[in-house]
């Protein structure tokens, strides 16, 4: 019985998240469209509202082209790795008090582990396609993941120190209810580092080097088509959502809001996540792309020292308070 409930919960969560993914693409296109003096999708449904469904149907029925020279098992498996790891990390995210599939002690670490595994999908996709562009995309992704995992982890150490826990629910509750007690304010440096590292971790502009369109055609997904291409896309958007959720939980006080919303406790959480995603999209419409070495420089020479400084300051602060 218990297993059945869990399966039901998982199913509900999956459906909701996948719908969100579908409509995140829609909103990305709409928002960027309006930022770029055009309309975005307009034809399918009222103001293109059914566009994501049409896209889904299209990519589902499209031919799945597998290059003759590709390493077939890995080529087929790579998008699945991406998607599964991203979906798995959803399990530990608390959407509201008690609204979490698995309230484990090391929630934060679990998400790190999953996101670092997602890079295997990218790397293997790049290698297995047996194309030079995908290979370079995979190499870039590897280097990027290795270098940005570190500041991403370090930026959250401050939060762990303040809350004294790796459990995501505890992190939210220890921030308290009021607006001013969000970790955003004591951890402003950490938030800055986290935000940039988060963009890099999800391969979004200005760090979209693994799939840099004008340099590497489409990077690691150059050879993919149809549903497998869509799987990568879904993984990217779920990654965005997971990262936005982590940002919300660790810095913006999770589901706490100025007042309680009856019957729907995750309201504030979802609102904050939407805010994050809007930022993602806004940045994509605005910024140019970094160069590979500049990206490395930013990661190693700016973000990691800043994150370490943040840890030091937080430690000093804790010592002084006690």
């Amino acid at each position, binding site marked *: 019985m218990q297993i059945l409930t869990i399966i039901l919960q998982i199913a509900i969560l999956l459906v909701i998240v996948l719908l969100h993914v579908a409509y995140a693409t829609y909103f990305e296109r709409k928002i*960027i469209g309006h*930022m*770029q*003096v*055009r309309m975005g999708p307009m034809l399918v449904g009222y103001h293109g509202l059914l566009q994501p469904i049409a896209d889904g149907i299209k990519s589902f029925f499209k031919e799945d082209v597998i290059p003759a020279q590709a390493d077939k098992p890995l080529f087929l498996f790579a998008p699945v790795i991406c998607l599964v790891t991203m979906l798995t990390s959803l399990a530990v995210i608390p959407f509201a008090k008690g609204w979490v599939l698995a309230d484990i002690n090391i929630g934060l670490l679990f998400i790190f582990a999953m996101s670092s595994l997602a890079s295997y999908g990218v790397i293997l996709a790049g290698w297995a396609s047996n194309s*030079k*562009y995908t290979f*370079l995309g995979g190499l*870039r992704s590897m280097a990027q993941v290795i270098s940005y995992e570190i500041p991403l982890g370090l930026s959250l150490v401050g939060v762990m120190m303040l809350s004294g826990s790796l459990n995501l629910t505890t992190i939210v509750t220890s921030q308290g209810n009021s607006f001013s007690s969000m970790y955003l304010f004591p951890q402003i440096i950490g938030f800055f580092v986290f935000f940039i590292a988060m963009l890099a971790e999800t391969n979004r*502009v*200005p760090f*979209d080097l693994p799939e*840099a*369109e*004008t*340099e*590497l*055609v489409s990077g690691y997904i150059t050879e993919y088509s149809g549903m497998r291409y869509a799987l990568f896309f879904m993984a990217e958007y779920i990654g965005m959502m997971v990262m936005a959720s982590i940002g919300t939980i660790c810095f913006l006080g999770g589901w706490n809001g100025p007042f309680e919303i009856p019957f729907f406790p995750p309201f504030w959480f979802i609102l904050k996540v939407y805010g994050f995603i809007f930022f993602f999209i806004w940045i*994509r*419409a*605005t*910024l*140019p*792309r*970094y*160069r*590979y*070495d*500049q990206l490395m420089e930013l990661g190693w020479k700016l973000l990691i020292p800043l994150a370490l400084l943040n840890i030091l300051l937080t430690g000093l602060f804790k010592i002084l308070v006690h």
Partner: protein
Amino acid sequence: MITLTDTQTIDIPVQSGDEDRYHLKLGPQHPATHGVLRVDLDLDGETILTCDPKVGYLHRGFEKLAEHRTYAQNIVLTDRLDYIAAMSNNVGYCEAVERLLAIEVPERAKMLRVMVCEMSRISSHLLWLATHALDIGAMTVFLYCFREREVLLELFAELCGARLTTTYTRLGGVRQDVTRSIMKKLDKFVEDFPACIEEYETLIDTNRIWLKRTIGVGQVSAEKALDLCLTGASLRGSGVDYDIRKHMPYSGYEKFEFDVPTGETGDTYARYRCRMEELRQSNFILRQCIEMMPPGPILGKDAPDLIMPIKPANKLEVDVPAKNALITLIEDRDVFMEGDIYVATEVPKGELGFYFISDGMGRPYRMHIRSPSFIHIGALSTMGQGVMIADLIAIIGTLDVVLGECDR
């Protein structure tokens, strides 16, 4: 299955020898090569060791073709050179032929030519800015530029019926006169455009990432730029004040007031600044055009007919194209004298030169097109050495090449 004992030699490119090198053939189908340019790269990681551009995928043999068509028929070919600024090519070609055949052009036609030239310069620079920014990753500028370019292309369509392949000029003048509605729309465009330039600049000009990606990238000194035979904004970005509109004025450019912006550092950013300044200057010239447009005919009195003498009457050998084309022989005119001429015009991409040899017939004996893109791509192998892939893309963008013009 893998069969380890099979080590037969086959043609699959297996890396061998120098393992540090990674060969990448960038293009000809690649979003950032502006057409069908292929660049053979030897990479060490992401750094380019050697860079070898390959062209010719769009070679249509215009120079050969031109020898079999009359001067007037060849105007159509010039549309297909730099298809982004066809007007400038039309004007450049006609200026050259008119110099060769000593044909007078009336004042109004000259002014109209300047007008369409500057319009196409703006449209070409807008496309350059759009794609250059897109290459570097800023996608919004792309659509902003296309918004303004659309106005210009619509004006072209209204003027001569085509947006890209205009064939607007004729030997001795232009094909169509402007209407009042065109002038009104152009006036509005000229009025609004400076604000648009500022809009683009607010988006990218002071962006830290943009500066990081452009300053110091693809740097060439003035001496090196001359050595590489760069022209246009690519040369002026290095600080050489060479603009054919000032140096060898054609089509009445000497009557206009405008500055030639030059850069100092010769890097991608300097060239970007130069072209942005050129947009302003072109707009200023357009303003003067609107104000100074003289009345009068648009076609000179001694403008030749579209039909031209193909053969001197005493020769009777007939070759294939003359048989197929519906061209009748008319009497020789004395303007068709033997001789050669090189006339260069300043097109958006740089110096577009036409070298003609006439043997006294209505067809060029030899037409050579000095296309800026061809020479700029030739410079790529020098400029692209030792940079990273992303920088190479930026350099291809900053050189502003069009492969139709390069391959001819």
